[in-house]
């Protein structure tokens, strides 16, 4: 008995504290049902108060982009809060510019639903869906690049535009997180989504993508991205990329060649060395079938002993400079790759007479 008394007393006190806390939680953290008005009455949601706006929206099947799983460390989940969001929190400040703060832009994962809210979301995001599927095939493209194809199950089809991306759900020690990957399969293949992922050592999402095997179930949301390809077949397409920036370019080129076989398009792609080259055969094949398409690869660190190479060498902007005529036809350029590459290519393109509005880029 003498031994039990301390245990009993201790347990009793713990239980009393737990009860007191539960009661306090009921009284303090109960916000009741709150209304969320989206785009001035287009859609009105009724959600449980007390959760974050991001989870309230996800619960209602509105998938805001989010990279970090709501921890406020990626800054992707921006939306505009018109009223009811409270003050901007210090955790949001690093991701918002002054003018964004003034116009009410917030991080959805940091805003708590405590009262009725009025928010604005780009129309596009309302079309984003949650897809489940299975891995249909995996192909190592180089030592650190993998091409993964997913067969969509529910819903079974996706309507995407070249240049858009999906968010792949990856498990992490702190719960599921999402990572953005551009869709590399052309828009006309509606039943599959193909991604090209570079392995980032220690990275959560890319390690997960590299660990997937045929038949594994996957979850992703999409499509995201407001980019629209010009529908005018007289506008030439110039794609320039490097490293992991291949995916959106592949989608653009294959989609364009399918839809407008006479449209002129080109690809400039930079790799380090011969062992980093991928998709060259596929593009050569495409060029054979489609005389309006031309492809140029360049190696920046070509080592003559590291493998055969009969193409260009040097940085990709040098090849662009060499092979792209200064022309006055209307052309659109799509750049996708590491920031220094984008900057160097931008300079070359401006010299070739591209206007700022005709250059689109994604820094990876």
């Amino acid at each position, binding site marked *: 008995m003498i031994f039990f008394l301390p245990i009993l007393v201790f347990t009793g006190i713990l239980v009393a504290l737990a009860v007191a806390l539960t009661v306090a939680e009921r009284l303090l953290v109960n916000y009741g049902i709150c209304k969320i008005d989206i785009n001035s009455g287009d859609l009105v949601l009724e959600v449980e108060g007390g959760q974050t706006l991001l989870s309230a929206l996800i619960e209602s099947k509105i998938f805001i982009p989010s990279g970090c799983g709501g921890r406020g460390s990626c800054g992707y989940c921006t939306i505009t809060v018109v009223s009811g969001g409270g003050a901007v929190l*210090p955790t949001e400040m690093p991701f918002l510019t002054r003018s964004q703060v003034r116009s009410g832009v917030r991080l959805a994962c940091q805003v708590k639903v405590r009262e009725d809210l009025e928010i604005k979301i780009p129309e596009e995001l309302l079309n984003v869906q949650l897809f489940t599927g299975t891995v249909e095939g995996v192909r190592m493209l180089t030592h650190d690049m993998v091409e993964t194809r997913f067969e969509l199950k529910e819903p079974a089809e996706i309507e995407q535009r070249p240049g858009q991306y999906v968010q792949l759900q990856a498990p992490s020690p702190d719960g599921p997180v999402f990572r953005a990957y551009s869709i590399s399969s052309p828009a006309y293949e509606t039943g599959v989504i193909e991604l090209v992922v570079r392995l980032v050592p220690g990275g959560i999402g890319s390690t997960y993508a590299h660990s997937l095997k045929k038949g594994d179930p996957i979850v992703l949301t999409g499509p995201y991205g407001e980019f629209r390809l010009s529908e005018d077949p007289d506008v030439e397409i110039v794609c320039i990329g490097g490293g992991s920036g291949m995916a959106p370019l592949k989608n653009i080129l294959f989609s364009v060649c399918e839809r407008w076989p006479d449209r002129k398009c080109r690809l400039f792609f930079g790799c380090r060395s011969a062992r980093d080259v991928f998709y060259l055969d596929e593009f050569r094949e495409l060029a054979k079938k489609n005389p309006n398409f031309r492809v140029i690869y360049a190696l920046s660190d070509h080592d003559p002993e590291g493998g055969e190479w009969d193409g260009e060498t040097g940085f990709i902007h040098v090849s662009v400079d060499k092979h792209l005529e200064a022309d006055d036809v209307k052309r659109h350029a799509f750049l996708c790759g590491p920031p220094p590459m984008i900057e160097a290519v931008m300079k070359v393109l401006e010299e070739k007479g591209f206007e700022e509005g005709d250059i689109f880029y994604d820094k990876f």
Partner: protein
Amino acid sequence: MGEVSPLVILVAAIFTNNILLANFLGMCSFLAVSKRIDTAAGLGAAVIFVTTFTTAINYGIYHHVLVPMELTFLSYIIFITVIAAFVQFVEMFVERFSPVLYHALGIFLPLITVNCAILGVSLFMIIRNYTFMQSIAFGFGGGVGWTLAIILIAGLRQKMRYSIVPVPFRGVAIAMVITGVMAMTFMGFAGMVTIQ
């Protein structure tokens, strides 16, 4: 200690026996959150709230449960549990009524749980055999003293952003030095009142 007025204990806890500057308890969050006056004051307010109420609860539990049952050896673990639960409560409270402060304090709000100043206040209350009113005064005064100290230091650190501090001293090092100087200054209050 039945004869000392709670008011004397209150004054002593703030000035002569300042828990931070005389006992150097609660240094961790003190050094981390003393960069800006407003967050320092916010954390201070939370600490005052927690010390006052936990001394009261702990007093009740100690004198009415542990002493009669001869279980005083449980006091450490029970005091900590009470503090932890109470901090949870304060967290909910702050989050509800001041989200901005909640996010500014960040991790340091739940970390009040392991702020040794708060356990220290409860333990001093036992060691010095305070009565209930004395305990409350001591708990409240201890919190106010800690807050006073952190606000003073935060003020200095805020000003110090514009002064040229030798490189090896930047950050926590200079904060420790000014805390030491501040502690010596507070010794000037020593003769005012004395408690144990």
